[in-house]
């Protein structure tokens, strides 16, 4: 629970930071009107900060994720996340440790119309996720209707390797340029499991990249915040740019 609160605190502070910088940028642009167009195409790479924070504060979690996207057209970005997670679930009834690597790949669509000179994103996206992982049953206890025989923790007997899971993910979020080419962002997501293979006579309590599973649905939800650096590779000149130049007002919304 304290971990959850910590995570939220961190998340809220990042969110505020983003809001403030957005505000600052709006003012900046109006004053300076740099006229830099959002017409560069390139690669953005970064790190998931939530997983790093959680690794520091949560004794039962280790995770690392590289995030990246590549601008394909004006609004469309190819996006992917590559990561590894190790998560221990400690419970009276069942304690497990899951570890594995995962890859998510898909697209982001920018739905935000930037003021001139700004390159922020409000995006909705889609991913296909895949993981291979192992799951170890650390300890378990036998459930009984009464406590005549005291409940006892029994050491687990298996460590199943080579498990896999596939899922699809819908997400939405923000990426805000806080310094030149440096972006902060966050996203919320809903995952829907398609296939998983479970250990014989057991269940996957956690799936790397997907998150905590539950007994009553194939869904899970998550949120992430991240920092990334944008590497511009080339510029695409919009065709209409020349004609527009004369009548261009100072503050313009790009379409």
């Amino acid at each position: 629970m304290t971990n959850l609160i910590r995570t939220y605190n961190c998340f809220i502070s990042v969110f505020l930071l983003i809001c403030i910088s957005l505000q600052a940028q709006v003012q900046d642009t109006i004053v300076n009107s740099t006229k830099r167009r959002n017409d560069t195409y390139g690669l953005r790479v970064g790190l998931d900060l939530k997983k790093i924070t959680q690794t520091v504060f949560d004794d039962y979690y280790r995770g690392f994720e590289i995030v990246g996207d590549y601008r394909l057209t004006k609004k469309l970005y190819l996006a992917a996340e590559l990561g590894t997670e190790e998560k221990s679930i400690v419970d009276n009834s069942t304690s497990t440790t899951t570890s594995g690597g995962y890859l998510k790949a898909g697209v982001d669509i920018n739905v935000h119309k930037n003021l001139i000179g700004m390159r922020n994103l409000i995006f909705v996206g889609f991913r296909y996720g895949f993981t291979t992982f192992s799951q170890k049953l650390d300890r378990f206890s036998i459930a009984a209707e009464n406590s005549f025989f005291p409940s006892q923790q029994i050491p687990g007997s298996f460590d199943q390797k080579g498990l896999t899971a596939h899922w699809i993910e819908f997400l939405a979020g923000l990426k805000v340029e806080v310094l030149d080419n440096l972006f902060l962002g966050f996203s919320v997501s809903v995952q829907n499991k398609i296939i998983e293979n479970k250990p014989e006579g057991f269940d996957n309590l956690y799936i790397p990249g997907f998150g905590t599973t539950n007994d009553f649905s194939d869904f899970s939800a998550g949120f992430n915040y991240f920092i990334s650096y944008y590497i511009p590779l080339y510029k695409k000149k919009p065709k209409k740019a020349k004609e527009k130049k004369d009548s261009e007002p100072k503050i313009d919304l790009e379409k």
Partner: protein
Amino acid sequence: MRKGLKFIFTRVALLLCFLGCERDDLCVDTPVTPFLIITFQNDDRSLDVKRPVVRLQVTLIENNKPFFIEPVSTDSIRIPLNTLKDNTKFLFTRNVGDANEANIASDILDFTYTRKDIYVNRACGFKTLFSDLKVNQETKNWIQNFEILNTNVNDEPNTHIQLFH
């Protein structure tokens, strides 16, 4: 811009609601480790009728722990089996606390079985099912005989053992 932020914000709020609903940690309404069901029958097997026991207490031999808080008068009982060992030894005593001590009688039954631990779900964890149930009657003071009706102790609510007295 504002609209976009609003959109994201409501999504975040929704998500927080989702995360607020923690999974159900309580193990209820799910069959877990089954009890051993014993019925008491009239010693005259030709009658094939149940015969209640008066003021019965069942005590675990290894630690002298009584199972019933108060002795019960009944013709059928549900008692647990030890899920950490392959046998459970009980002392069955009738007419507990009777003024006439000659009426009080005890017998020892040793139940042996094979265990299998099976995963139930996240909230409950595991349960144990028993098979190859055998009974070794060590004394014969009031229980004259027994019959095993079902050697598998699983989730079915049927009688596993009949005791004749």
